[in-house]
């Protein structure tokens, strides 16, 4: 019995190793074991082969099924000459009533779509309960420092009449610059239902911003700072990568879970897909708190690999990020819109990071002025 338990544990480890389910420490440990023990090594090789064969079998089976389906569909529609499996009279009748059948089929199609729609509108709620978006409520915003800042600003301008009335912001998240002219990206859920949006940098300076693009499906929003006091920033020190990051690669985030104080978080990429295998996002192991929504997720070379947007409620340290390629898609999408601010057409996401090879504290120093707190009401 004991022997079987041992074998089982070993095979389980081999399997998790092959499937990439091990954490970095475990993986290292296992690789050492593999090197030291040729039997374990052989087991890995053999099991990899076996899993490949099984996987292929599964793919083939699925493909064969779809071939049969397609064959039947096409012959029913008369697009290929083949007769239906049980031809004869039925086929004759079918051809005779093809038009009616086509109408009936299209009605069936509509119902199918509607059912899908209903299912679609109901199902996402269930998994979302397990997810917690990381937007934060702000109770009191009228912080002294801010007021002072504003006063100084107005004094500098010498124009006391221009004071905008204090807006009580109620929610906050994080956003980061994608273009020095004042474009930021954040989560859609951060700015959802917002009437006023403002962003605030690490120095505590606040700027008015407007939402120029919002996509609830990918949970991405693009903001533009719309404030005469904002000075254009030089190009971003970080770059944006469409490439998938490797499992276990170290990552870090910077955001505003605390009040007006930038917080650094460190972790690693734990899965290339997000909650329930969602392919728009990826899973990271990092401490995430409310207010972290919209934080950039960067790898050690200073490439943005995602935008932090949620964490799993029942598991500590499990968070999710929207993959960077969605930012590229959002820009392409935004450019197609007719009434879009024309300057958005000139945004080019940097693909060269100036941060690679630097130590973390240096990287953060370069990045921090590009990370903003997003405040909405």
């Amino acid at each position, binding site marked *: 019995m004991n022997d079987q338990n041992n074998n*089982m544990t070993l095979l389980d480890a081999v399997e998790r190793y092959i499937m990439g389910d091990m954490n970095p420490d475990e993986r290292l440990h296992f690789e050492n074991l593999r090197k030291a023990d040729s039997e374990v090594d052989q087991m890995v090789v053999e099991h990899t082969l076996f899993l490949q*064969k099984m996987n292929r079998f599964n793919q083939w089976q*699925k493909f064969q099924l779809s*071939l049969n*389906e*397609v064959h039947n569909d*096409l012959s029913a529609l008369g697009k290929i000459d*083949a007769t239906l499996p049980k031809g004869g009279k039925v086929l004759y009748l079918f051809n005779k009533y093809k038009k009616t059948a086509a109408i009936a089929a299209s009605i069936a199609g509509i119902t199918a779509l509607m059912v899908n729609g209903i299912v679609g509108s109901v199902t996402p709620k269930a998994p979302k309960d397990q997810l917690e978006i990381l937007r934060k409520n702000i109770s009191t915003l009228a912080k002294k420092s801010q007021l002072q800042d504003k006063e100084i600003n107005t004094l500098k301008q010498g124009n006391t009449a221009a004071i905008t009335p204090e807006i009580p912001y109620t929610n906050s998240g994080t956003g980061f610059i994608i273009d020095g002219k004042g474009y930021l990206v954040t989560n859609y859920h951060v700015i959802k239902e917002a009437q006023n949006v403002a962003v605030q940098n690490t120095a505590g300076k606040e700027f008015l911003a407007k939402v120029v693009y919002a996509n609830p499906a990918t949970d991405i929003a693009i903001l533009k700072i719309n404030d005469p006091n904002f000075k254009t920033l030089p190009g971003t020190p970080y770059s944006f990568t469409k490439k998938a990051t490797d499992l276990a690669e170290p990552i870090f985030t910077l955001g505003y879970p605390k009040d007006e104080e930038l917080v650094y978080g460190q972790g690693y990429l734990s899965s290339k897909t997000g909650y329930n295998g969602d392919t728009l996002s990826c899973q990271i192991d990092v401490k995430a708190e409310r207010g972290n929504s919209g934080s950039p997720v960067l790898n050690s070379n200073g490439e943005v690999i995602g935008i932090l947007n949620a964490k799993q409620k029942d598991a500590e340290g499990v968070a999710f990020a929207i993959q960077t390629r969605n930012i590229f898609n959002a820009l392409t999408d935004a450019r197609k819109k007719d009434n879009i601010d024309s300057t958005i057409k000139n945004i080019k996401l940097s693909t060269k990071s100036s941060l690679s090879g630097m130590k973390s504290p240096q990287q953060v120093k370069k990045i921090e002025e590009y990370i903003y707190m997003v405040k909405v009401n």
Partner: protein
Amino acid sequence: MKDSTLEQEISLLKGLARNDKKSVEMIYGQNYNLVQALVVNNNGTIDDAKDIFQEAMMVLYDKARSGSFELNCQIRTYLYSVARRLWLKKLNQSNRHTADFDDTNETQIAVDGDVVEHEKKDAEFEMMHTAISTLGEPCKSLLEAFYFKNNSMQEIAEVFGYTNAENAKTQKYKCLMRLKKIFFSQYKKT
């Protein structure tokens, strides 16, 4: 080939590799009749035609998935050539082959290597199929749920009625060991 056709064909192949239904339908619809005519005109039935065409589609599917497939002819030419090769082989095996093989389509390419490779894979497929079928229930469904449907052990325990995930895991291990034994006893013979 014109550039636009080439692009279209490449995107069809990419769709095929993903088992995207629209692409499969396109390729199927555009090429089935040609292959059926070939088979039916040469001693075959419509059912034979379906089998041969679908097998040719499998060869193309594998090619498209391997990623190393360079399209140096049209999909149509490729499918026709493979189907022709497969059907000739089948005729030869059943001694039905006649000298006057009626072949109106003259554009063909050499696909012998691909067909041989396909047969090897097909044999493995059959081996896996037999191995999984001989396992019996609930082993078969349990392994399928874990490896093909990616269900978690917790879910499997609930569906199959094991008292907890640990017990389900032990059963999965036993089933897997049996499956491997059956499969490899066949596989190592080849």
